């Protein structure tokens, strides 16, 4: 084969290098358009950025961002809510929100209280009590012979991440039953099928997960036993809607508007969960379950959504039955005490109730009537 002259070799190398640079530029420009932007205006409407504390979108969080499709957001000057997933760590989503990479998130209070207890300002403020009851679903295999936390001394414990927010709750429950938390051993058991396998094959004795995760297992043919939580834990609350502190100060109208829209969406989802699921699938089509019929997928998704709504919607037994309200300021103090934090901790710096009235300034009956007659367009 004849040898190519130097000029041709130089040209080949130059073309390769220039092509690489052009490709980088073209793809980077195209890619940058997909970057989650800062809160900006969509015409006269604002875009809010939600940091999802789980690594994938689940139907349980649908009410937080489907309000744009129902017109609820536009009424409040909001175009849409952009959702960004995180690695499944509450700490990461709070950090991202505090750093301004997102406007709001939905953390569990343990992280916020523990941060404050260590003298660290988490940088976010809870404005709405989203999940009013503990979401913990501590599962054991139905054939394991484990009936309560008293049987878990020396247990192997499965978690979705070693910094799971459910670990403090679990350890508190162990102490309530006289079990030393230092005797248990934690291991990561992933999600879904991995958890089922871990329980069935006794890789773990108990798995620390949450309401809607456990709600999906019966559809896979597995019915775990869920341990009953002690009263001390049942009286706690769970995730709040927490905005970046500066955002709350600078955009109180948007915060109030979003919470009003959220309340409407929760009522809508309660009245017409099938429509809420379909709207969620329209917003995030990659989340639609595969490998099953549309009907099965809808049934499964509705079950998951309803399992979460059961812990979100106020009940008549609640001391303060308004949407987004905590039972009382004492509830925060009790939570801090539950975590073993000092009594004089300034828990009031972590939340505000100034938006609760605004969030409930809606006509619930009108929303329910709208939901009843609503049909999702294809």
């Amino acid at each position, binding site marked *: 084969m004849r040898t190519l002259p130097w000029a041709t070799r130089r040209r080949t*190398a130059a073309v390769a290098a220039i092509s*690489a640079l052009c490709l*980088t530029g073209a793809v980077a420009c195209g890619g940058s358009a997909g970057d989650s932007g800062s809160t900006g205006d969509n015409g006269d409407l604002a875009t809010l950025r939600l940091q999802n504390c789980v690594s994938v*979108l689940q139907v349980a969080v649908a009410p937080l961002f489907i309000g744009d499709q129902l017109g609820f957001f536009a009424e409040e000057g909001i175009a849409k809510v952009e959702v*960004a*997933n995180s690695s499944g760590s509450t700490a990461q989503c709070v950090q991202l929100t505090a750093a301004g*990479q997102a406007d709001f998130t939905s953390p569990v209070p343990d992280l916020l209280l523990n941060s404050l207890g260590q003298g660290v300002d988490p940088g976010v403020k809870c404005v709405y009590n989203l999940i009013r009851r503990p979401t913990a679903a501590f599962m054991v295999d139905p054939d394991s012979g484990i009936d309560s936390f008293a049987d878990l001394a020396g247990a192997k414990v499965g978690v979705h991440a070693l910094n799971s927010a459910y670990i403090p709750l679990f350890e508190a429950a162990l102490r309530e039953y006289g079990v030393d938390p230092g005797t248990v051993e934690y291991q990561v058991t992933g999600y879904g099928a991995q958890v089922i396998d871990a329980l069935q094959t006794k890789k773990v004795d108990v798995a620390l997960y949450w309401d809607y995760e456990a709600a999906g297992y019966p*559809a896979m043919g597995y019915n775990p036993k869920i341990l009953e939580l002690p009263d001390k834990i049942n009286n706690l609350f769970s995730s709040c809607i927490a905005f970046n502190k500066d955002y709350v100060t600078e955009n109180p109208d948007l915060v109030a508007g979003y919470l009003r829209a959220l309340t409407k969406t929760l009522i809508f989802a309660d009245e017409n969960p099938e429509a809420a699921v379909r709207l969620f699938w329209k917003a*995030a089509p990659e989340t*639609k379950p595969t490998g099953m019929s549309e009907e099965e997928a809808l049934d499964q998704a509705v079950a998951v959504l309803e399992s979460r709504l059961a812990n979100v919607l106020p009940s008549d037994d609640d001391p303060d039955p308004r949407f987004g309200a905590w039972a009382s300021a004492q509830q925060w103090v009790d939570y801090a005490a539950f975590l073993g934090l000092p009594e004089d901790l300034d828990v009031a710096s972590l939340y505000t109730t100034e938006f609760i009235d605004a969030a409930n300034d809606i006509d619930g009956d009108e929303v329910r009537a709208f939901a009843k007659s609503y049909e999702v367009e294809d």
Partner: protein
Amino acid sequence: MTGTEPRVATRAQAGTTTPSSTPSPQRARRRRGIGDVLRSRWVLVPVVFVVMMLLWQFIATKVVSTELLLPTPQRVWESMWTALTQGPYWGRASVYYHFYQTAKICIVGFLVGSSLGILLGVLMAQSKVLMTALGPYITAFQSLPRIAIAPIVVLWFGQGFTSNVVITATVVFLPVLVSTLSGLSTVDRGLLEMLRGFSASRWQTLRKVSLWAALPSIFAGLQVGIVFSVVGAIVAEWVGANEGLGVLLLQAQYSMDVPRSFAILVLLGVLGLVLNGLIVALQKAVLFWQRDESTKKEQRMFST
């Protein structure tokens, strides 16, 4: 026939013992036997594929026996076929769209990481001071698990394409840097001394000899880097993304659709093969002398 026959030097006249370089018509190339055919890529690759599928089928049906842990190849194929043929063919519901998003991160992350690796490799090869000063820190940085630093990258750059590219670039960087350094350190000393004798500058030596001599090693690093870019892209998507095959994989796990999880893993493998193929093709185009050398080697093998 008139004319002078070409003068063929005898061994005595040439003073050599090498055989004639021009094979006579009677010395035909050795025919490729059945062994050569069986050892060829076109046979071995499909055979290994069939063996692997049979083994997979056996383990899935006779050993594991539950789709939760290991679906059969057929179920995986069905899931992949559904994903590839069921519309829409673009948008977040489309596997093609997510494939494209991941490929984009891989390519841009690879270009950024490999560019930095080559640039720093050249600089460090030229400067012992730089090599001594930076070497330990680069090694220490590369020892950090990407899954651990990825959340920090997302915190700094925000979620989206930029942080995904940065995470991918950090994975690609070291193999390319090491291969560049290795290539530049093994340039023929004789050539370098010759250029020194001709009073060539450091830049002339680098441009005219060293870089070209190091290219085979650099390309070896690029081949490793492009495959690592897929790993980096998936890590990035797992830490925080809404699009890409990594997100689809997580979604499939969440939905407990194990065949779909495996189908997505297959697609990731295909992506790695395609990207690697691009680098190999580029290598063949740029390192044409390797092609010449392998052809001459083949000619010598089949001429006696």
